[in-house]
């Protein structure tokens, strides 16, 4: 199993290297190499997952390669194989595979076609590195590599100004998170002097609540660690207040938005917290914080989605909102539910993005939904796929999204977190609204495409683009139904996640079984809100039977993303510019470059030049040096003894 996992892990890396070497070759090579390497990973993950469940294995942590083993820390490459990592890797590789396949067509006219696949392959590798890591250092490395590939892909079109600034923003925000992660890592090293997950899990039971004193404040080290790590997760998973980079990151190619900024990378934070659930269970206050952050994100960023007009941005805000659900689930100690929503969300959100990509291609890179309309006839397949994905997103009963999202909301309510529950509940409404906004505006009404292209109506899009839509529809809609029961009974993530008993009790007392949950849902307020939302949007967006004028103030607040917009658009660049200018001019150039580095190197160089003259080339000097050294040693020894 270990060997297979290693192959699974390095297959994308090898793909990347091969791609690098044949960068100048034809596109065929790139397509072949990238798709096959991901395919290998995908098949292997499924196979290993099957092996894992069929053989009733227990989680195992294997150190494959040791690079360094110092008292302070050990640096090694290890694998953590358990249901959590295997499920996650299956999700990552499957979405990645489909997106790769999709990109063949989507990117076919791009000049940097080969470069694109290098990045995506590399991304897949880095993500798998995080998924399978069994220690914090490896996690951190993977974390940074993922950030790097995301950075590269957001700015994939290097000539596009907005892409560059989005790129920059994403980079900046992720740094904030990285600082948190890094501090957490340091704190872990300080308090546990190991980075291995298992060892830390074991230690925490014995000295769980060791307190630290810093600046006179005393607090639990574990809580501090978890808090810092969560800051890292917040940046990566776009939680308030570090969420504003994600909408901008839609500047990258759409497949990338599907793969990285919807399905996989942004969930890394969720995954990490779930992975470390045994630690989070022991903290005090951190979970509540997480819960509130999650629900705030879910509600308020959902609102923002309402006022957007760019199709990709809307879906991006929706992603943030959905991530908020997951975070809230984490905060309520419902780790398996969070993972469940992560999985279903990965599929339906990827599907949504791919549909959006299909639309965008068809409309010649027009992304404003006000200018797109009436595509239902033109793109039937995309239409259907989008429909199913939307149903899943809004949580229409029986779809995957229904099971995952409604469970979270109900469970949060069930365990008595009233305010988050209300916020999550309300955001069902907003979700419904913005989803149907896209849906109705894009697919209904008068066709916006120019007449001349109507000849092409027969061909909706390339087959390579449509196949993934088909394939993804299945898990996006039905996956939830199949895995809901085993998941809720705690079978799926047995031994991997802490606090399974909460979910199980919720299941036993509230859900009973999936069918029951389905039937029951029609009687809940959730469905009511959903239904209201649908009715409302049907009339508002489709029939346009009435018009609502939102007060300008509120609209402005929402449009400006509660001030984050200006923060990100205006203040941060300016502050950043000033600070970096200061760092560059005053600190880097004059102090470090000239003062430290150049002077040091000058000093050392001149020292070297001077001492070089000691090597005179004369035998008598040489012999003198040797004899003097000998005498020196003798004298030292004579004195010492």
């Amino acid at each position, binding site marked *: 199993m270990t060997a297979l996992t290693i192959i699974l892990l390095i297959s994308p890396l090898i793909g990347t290297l091969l791609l690098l070497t044949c960068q100048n070759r034809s596109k065929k090579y790139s397509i072949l190499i990238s798709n096959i390497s991901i395919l290998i990973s995908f098949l292997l993950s499924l196979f290993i997952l099957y092996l894992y469940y069929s053989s009733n294995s227990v989680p195992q942590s294997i150190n494959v390669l040791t690079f360094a083993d110092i008292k302070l820390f050990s640096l090694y490459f290890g694998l953590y194989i358990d249901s959590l990592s295997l499920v996650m890797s299956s999700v990552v590789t499957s979405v990645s595979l489909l997106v790769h396949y999709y990109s063949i067509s989507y990117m076919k006219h791009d000049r940097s076609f080969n470069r694109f696949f290098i990045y995506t392959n590399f991304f897949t590798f880095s993500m798998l590195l995080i998924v399978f890591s069994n220690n914090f250092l490896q996690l951190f490395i993977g974390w940074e590599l993922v950030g790097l590939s995301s950075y590269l892909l957001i700015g994939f079109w290097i000539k596009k100004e907005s892409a560059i600034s989005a790129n920059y923003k994403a980079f900046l925000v992720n740094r904030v998170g990285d600082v948190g992660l890094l501090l957490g890592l340091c704190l872990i090293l300080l308090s546990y002097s190991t980075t291995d997950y298992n060892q830390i899990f074991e230690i925490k039971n014995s000295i769980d609540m060791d307190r630290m004193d810093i600046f006179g404040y005393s607090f639990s080290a574990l809580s501090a660690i978890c808090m810092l790590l969560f800051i890292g997760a917040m940046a990566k998973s776009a939680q308030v207040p570090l969420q504003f980079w994600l909408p901008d990151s839609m500047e990258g190619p759409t497949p990338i938005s599907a793969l990285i900024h919807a399905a996989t990378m942004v969930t890394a934070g969720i995954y990490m917290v779930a992975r470390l659930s045994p630690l989070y269970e022991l903290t005090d206050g951190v979970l509540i914080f997480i819960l509130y952050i999650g629900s705030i994100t879910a509600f308020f960023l959902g609102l923002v989605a309402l006022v957007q007009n760019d199709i990709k941005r809307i879906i991006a805000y929706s992603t943030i909102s959905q991530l908020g659900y997951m975070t809230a689930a984490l905060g309520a100690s419902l780790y398996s539910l969070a993972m469940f929503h992560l999985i279903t969300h990965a599929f339906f959100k990827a599907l949504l993005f791919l549909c959006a990509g299909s639309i965008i291609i068809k409309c010649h890179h027009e992304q404003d939904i006000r200018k797109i309309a009436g595509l239902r006839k033109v793109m039937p397949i995309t239409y259907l796929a989008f429909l199913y994905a939307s149903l899943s997103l809004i949580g229409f009963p029986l779809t995957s999204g229904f099971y995952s999202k409604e469970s979270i909301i109900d469970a949060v309510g069930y365990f008595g977190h009233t305010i988050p529950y209300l916020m999550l509940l309300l955001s069902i409404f907003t979700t419904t609204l913005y989803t149907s906004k896209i849906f109705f505006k894009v697919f209904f009404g008068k066709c916006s495409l120019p007449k001349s292209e109507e000849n092409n109506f027969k061909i909706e899009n390339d087959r390579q683009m449509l196949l993934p839509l088909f394939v993804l529809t299945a898990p996006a809609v039905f996956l939830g139904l199949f895995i809901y029961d085993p998941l809720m009974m705690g079978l799926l993530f047995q031994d991997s996640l802490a606090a399974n008993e909460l979910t199980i009790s919720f299941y036993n007392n509230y859900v009973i079984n999936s069918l029951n949950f389905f039937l029951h849902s029609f009687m809940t307020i959730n469905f009511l809100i959903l239904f209201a939302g649908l009715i409302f949007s049907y009339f508002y967006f489709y029939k346009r039977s009435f018009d609502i004028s939102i007060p300008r103030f509120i609209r402005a607040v929402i449009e400006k993303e509660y001030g984050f917009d200006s923060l990100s658009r205006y203040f941060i660049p300016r502050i950043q510019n000033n600070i970096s200018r200061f760092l560059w001019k005053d600190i880097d150039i004059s102090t470090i470059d000239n003062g430290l580095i150049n002077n040091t190197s000058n000093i050392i160089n001149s020292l070297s030049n001077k001492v*070089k*003259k000691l*090597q*005179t*080339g*004369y*035998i*008598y*000097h040489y*012999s*003198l040096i040797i*004899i003097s050294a000998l005498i020196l040693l003798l004298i030292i020894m004579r004195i010492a003894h």
Partner: protein
Amino acid sequence: MIPISYYLILSTIIFTLSIAGIFINRKNILVLLMSLELMFLSVNFNLITLGNYLGDLTGQVFVFFVLTVVAAESAIGLALLIVLFRNKKSIDVDDLSELKG
């Protein structure tokens, strides 16, 4: 019976003289080679003296080998000297400074 330390002091003096010979000599590499011969002579002195003191023949055997090796060594050294002279037309110690820095 002569005290053993006399011999040792004598050999040390010769040893130091030969070392001094190596670095006070600025003229002639041949003399350097001769200084080296002196050095080995003094070491042999040491070995023989100590062997005599210990009543052990190992010292003398050692000296025998040292004599053999040093003879071969000086043969090679003189050969190198000849090669050097052919190349440089000089065996001044001062001229040996092309390699430096």
